[in-house]
């Protein structure tokens, strides 16, 4: 594959994702409203009952809203990853996936390009959320808004790759509701998005272990540290390895030899 061909195709796939995004304004609104409800309703309600000790990367006591805001960024990316998985299943059901698969490009490249495109859309949503949160007095250091960008790329890719992997396992659109119950909810609630690990440990050791190994927890921690201008090597490595594992399995699932992935 010539590099110029790859770049043109990547540009085309990104553009298509943005066109679709523009045409589906409800999708953008839903992606923004969901975390904002959590922030304005859930977090505000729990503010007085949940005190948080000083934990890195924070250097002082923080309000619960400040803590949960990062988890909600993760939530935006998690839902976006699952949304792109849903659109892959839809494309496969409707047949438009075939257009992509008969183009003269390696499948790993096509999947990676789709992943980058959906990650870009999720990053736009995250920055829109951060802007609203800023007016709600949830403000990170100015440089944090820049330093969080590469972290958002990696976490977006990791959660998108998980979505791709799931799309290879789901044969029908109707089965997608299972993803909600068995992937999104457990991943979100068994993570550090809502409570820090030490707090989870206080109530359940098993939950603490599950949350520690949950890739979504590490994605949230990577975002949290980056937003405050710090680098969490463990969270970064864990997220990177998770991305590589999910992506490898998803690429295998879309190979022509696994022809069952393409609806006959």
């Amino acid at each position, binding site marked *: *594959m*010539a590099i*110029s*061909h790859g770049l*043109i*195709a990547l*540009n*085309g*796939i990104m*553009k*298509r994702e943005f*066109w*679709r995004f523009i*045409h*589906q304004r409800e999708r953008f609104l839903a992606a923004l409203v969901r975390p904002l409800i959590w922030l304005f309703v859930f977090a505000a309600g729990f503010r007085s009952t949940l005190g948080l000790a000083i934990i890195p990367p924070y250097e002082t006591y923080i309000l619960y809203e400040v803590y949960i805001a990062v988890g909600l960024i993760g939530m935006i990316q998690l839902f976006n990853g699952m949304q792109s998985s849903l659109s892959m299943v839809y494309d496969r059901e*409707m*047949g*438009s996936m*075939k*257009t*992509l*698969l*008969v*183009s*003269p*490009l*390696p499948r790993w490249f096509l999947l990676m390009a789709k992943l980058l495109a959906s990650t870009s859309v999720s990053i736009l949503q995250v920055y829109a959320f951060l802007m609203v949160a800023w007016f709600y007095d949830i403000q990170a250091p100015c440089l944090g808004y820049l330093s969080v960008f590469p972290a958002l790329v990696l976490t977006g890719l990791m959660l998108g790759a998980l979505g791709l992997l799931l799309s290879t396992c789901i044969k029908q659109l109707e089965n997608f509701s299972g993803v909600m119950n068995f992937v999104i909810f457990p991943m979100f609630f068994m993570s550090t998005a809502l409570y820090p690990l030490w707090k989870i440990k206080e109530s359940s050791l098993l939950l603490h272990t599950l949350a520690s190994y949950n890739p979504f927890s590490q994605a949230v921690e990577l975002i949290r540290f980056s937003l405050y201008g710090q680098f969490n090597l463990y969270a970064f490595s864990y997220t990177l390895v998770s991305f590589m594992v999910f992506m490898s399995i998803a690429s295998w699932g879309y*190979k*022509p*030899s696994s*022809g069952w992935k*393409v609806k*006959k």
Partner: protein
Amino acid sequence: MTKPAASSLQVKNLSYSFETKQVLHDISLSLAGGDCGILLGPNAAGKTTLFSLIAGLYNGREGQVLINGVDIKNKPYNALSRLGVVFQQSTLDMDLSVLQNLNYHAALHGMSGRRATSRINEELDHLGLQDSKNEKIRALNGGHRRRVEIARALIHQPSLLLLDEPTAGLDIPTRQALVEHLHNLCSNGRVSILWATHLIDEVYPTDKVIVLNKGRIEAQGEVSVICKKLAVDDLKAAYQTLTGKN
């Protein structure tokens, strides 16, 4: 225009099974440049599976598929760059405009800027779609959507065009216009076509007919040759004799 001599498509001893069920048995066929090949067969004859193998959507375990002399298994991207496909089901993005769909396809084939714009405009002109280019696909009727799909498949100037029942669901005048347009593409030598259908009235006397039944090729050649061989008057009778179906 004279027809190019090279083989656009060669399928050699191709067999395929879905788990234990064999759906294609030792298929061999070839199309020269500018040929219009009509793949006739009843439902479940194996037409779509054969197309999926030619397009590289499935990996054939036995046999070989060469597009313009390039093996789809060994050099898939090279082979696919010479191939245009129109699937039985519409594969257009309904929420995007005609132009956006065509630009997306051009980008997948490494075409951008002036080259893509000029090729898109040529195909829009050929298919009479200039006036609808900014319309969303969702707003177009079935005939227009089909034409967009054909335009899309031709943008990168493939040497072989695969059409899987492209006239399905269209009204008679639209179908006739499309059949004529596709035959013109072949006679101009622009492209070779392999066209799956079960509608005998879409076949022209000069077409190369391939009758597929239960995963086997029952006959292939020009209409007159097949009819003579089976001692029947027309293709309809030949088709009935070969498949046992109307």
